[in-house]
């Protein structure tokens, strides 16, 4: 404190490495991981079919993580997305099996439900003033309750139309639909955040809500919109998961919450200094998927998956805050 002027240049020198590490470390890690897995399992890992397999496994997590990214950019957390996705998977199969609705009707209804959950989250956070962690933990738990009330806890499997199952399992030019849908959703989200006036407002609200308000931006609306995007993306993941499983299962998508958070935070430490962005989340999701794929190829026991997932979440948030600390120095 006393030698502020003398210490400044020195600090810059020492902070260059951590800053670089925080910005490009994840990409370096991704390359190292691909290289190591390729060397260790040359027959199984570096093949086109395994590549597509990895993307297919990553697709659902990336869609829900993309939505979460928007909520996180506006400066809020959404813990309800995993539970909501599970509920929406059950709901979409239920609407088809129990109510006989065709997929073309059931799917839009469920997407609207996703938007509605986001709207409710947003209203509670902005108009009532509840912290988003608590608010979405609450709504998420309520959604679990709704899920059990709707399904009585039993999977809805029998009578799911083939046309619905084909959405997730089908392929176009050899590429799984899920992957194509993920690419389209990610591209749309990128355009929304980076190339629209709403996206600029979203970034401004997350960067400094007061400055955004004083620039005439309607902060509450933008925040609500962020929650709604997260809600719709959760619904897409829930629907595609139900389609892939061929059934609506009460807690099928719960674990996507953790994966989504890990991807979002890993992504914030990618290419930018601790700033959340869609492309970063894409990288984060891929790293996690490749890690899981490697664990599976080497036949690691199941408990390693949990260790890996927990460790990567901590690593991701750690890198993210490291990046932010060295930003704007």
């Amino acid at each position, binding site marked *: *404190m*006393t030698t502020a002027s003398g210490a400044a240049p020195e600090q810059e020198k020492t902070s260059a490495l951590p800053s670089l590490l925080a910005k490009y470390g994840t990409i370096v890690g991704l390359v190292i991981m691909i290289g190591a897995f390729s060397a260790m399992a040359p027959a199984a890992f570096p093949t086109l079919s395994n590549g597509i397999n990895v993307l297919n496994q990553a697709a659902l997590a990336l869609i829900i993580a993309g939505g979460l990214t928007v909520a996180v950019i506006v400066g809020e957390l959404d813990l309800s997305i995993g539970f909501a996705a599970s509920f929406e998977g059950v709901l979409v199969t239920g609407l088809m099996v129990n109510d006989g609705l065709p997929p073309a009707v059931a799917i839009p209804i469920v997407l609207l439900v996703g938007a509605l959950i986001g709207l409710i989250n947003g209203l509670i956070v902005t108009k009532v003033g509840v912290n988003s962690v608590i608010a979405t933990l609450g709504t998420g738990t309520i959604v679990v309750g709704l899920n059990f009330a709707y399904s009585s806890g039993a999977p809805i499997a029998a009578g799911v139309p083939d046309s619905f199952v084909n959405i997730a399992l089908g392929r176009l030019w050899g590429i799984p639909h899920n992957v194509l849908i993920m690419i389209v959703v990610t591209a749309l989200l990128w*355009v929304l955040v980076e*190339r*629209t*006036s*709403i*996206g*600029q*407002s979203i*970034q*401004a609200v997350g*960067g*400094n809500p*007061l*400055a*955004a*308000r*004083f*620039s*005439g*931006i*309607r902060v509450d609306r933008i925040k609500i919109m962020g929650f709604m995007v997260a809600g719709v993306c959760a619904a897409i993941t829930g629907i595609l998961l139900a389609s892939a499983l061929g059934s609506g299962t009460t807690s099928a998508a719960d674990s996507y919450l953790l994966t989504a958070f890990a991807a979002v935070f890993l992504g914030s430490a990618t290419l930018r*200094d601790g*700033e959340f962005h869609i492309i970063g989340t894409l990288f984060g999701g891929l790293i996690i998927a490749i890690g899981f794929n490697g664990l599976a190829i080497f036949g690691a026991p199941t408990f390693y998956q949990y260790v890996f997932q927990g460790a990567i979440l901590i690593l991701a948030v750690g890198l993210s805050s490291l990046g932010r600390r060295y*930003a*704007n120095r």
Partner: protein
Amino acid sequence: MGNSAIQPVGAETATPATVSSLVRVTGLRKHYGGVRALKGVDLDLRAGEIHGLVGANGAGKSTLIKILAGLESPDAGEISVDGTPVSIATPDQATALGLSFIHQELNLVPRMSALQNIMLGVPKASTLGLVDWRRVRQLVQPIATRVGIRFSLETPAAALSVAEGWLVSICRALVRRSRLIVMDEPTASLSAHECDNLFRIVRDLSGNGVAVLYVSHRLDEITGLCHHVTAFRDGLLAAQIDRASLNRARLVEAIVGTDKPETFALAAANVIAPESDEIALSVRNLRRGSAVRDVSFDLHKGEVLGLGGLVGSGRSETVRLIFGADAMQGGQMTLCGRAFTPRTPHDAVEAGVGLVPEERRSEGLVLAKSVAFNLSLTSLLGLHVAPPLPLMSMRRRDKQAQEMSQRLLIKMPNVATPVGRLSGGNQQKVVIGKWLSRSLRVLILDEPSRGVDIGARQEIHRIIRELATQGVSIIVISSETEELPGLCDRVLVMVEGRIATELRGAAITREALVQASYLSTEESQPS
């Protein structure tokens, strides 16, 4: 208990001039970044005296107090207590030396009782390691009675009035055996009766050998109460006045100074009073709480209107109402002849009102984002590729930012530079630039040149005058008395939530502004 450390307090009545120095400060210097807050000031404070500290905003009073409190460390200079040089690195050390500080915000823990607040951080009487609150209360009660506490010490601080909070804070200082209590604007939110009570206690403290450093903008209190007065101006010692020659005129002169600033003479020549008949904004009987009590004025088209007065006189609060940042509790506004009731800043912006806020880093800018990003925030819809398509043209955004930067002479590597990396003056230009890309009727600037170097300040003034000639109506708030004279066509001086004085053209001088700012409203004068 509180004054036991003080030795000879024989002549403890009127002027303890014979007593030696308690705290002596010599040649104290402190700079923040490029701003030199203290350029070598002295203070000589004797045991048991009431010592006034006066100066305009930014004169260096707060910096001195922070250094004494151990919150900031000085660049150079010496502080001695009882003739021994000391270094005060932490608030703990200040307490150990017998210095106590009572700030305007009081810093009481709202949910704790008065007694708990008084004893915060003080070793308490205990039995077997447990605090014996009954004994603690017995020890504290006489001191509490002495400072005039009539309420129960069990009352939670949240339930106390501001005046009662002051008594608790004074009691806390005495329990810590303080020999000097620094009081920062003690009467700012007290009623006349509460003020009288406080003055009585301050005199009583002095009589018992406790020195008081009394910081106030209210000159009548200073002249009525203090044995000695130290005045700062622009980080320098302006005057040391003793009781015999203490009067209002002397204080005003010390605060304002007699030298005329040359730098603003040039700007003043440009000032023309347009006196356009067209009224852009009309404000009638605006009210909100105790900050804005009854404000009415008209703002003409193309006029630069200054809002003068002291910090806390209600200027920022008034413009926040005009900008829709706070809800008004009474009054009407019309903007270009139409009723104007902004509920949010968004409404105000849509109607053509812009605000350059006082805290530019926390309220005006997204620091991590680029210059181009920040400059485009108020004109996002205008940057669409084609109106029905919601896509933005980043090329147009960058081009607009480029042009704006050239127009405002913003110094930066390029428009992609994060705005947090720019200097204060350039950051301020970005905040102003945000508003220039949309059609504006009224632009409000709250302390536009605070923390900005002289060159950038002149450029900001040039931009303001230029906008006015283009027909934009401007409101400028400034606490620096030399800023408004060169810049404004008309100045309204606010005192305690009301407009007290209107100055026009050549009548806008530093002296007139200071005089008007210190115009007290009859009440709250020490007896």
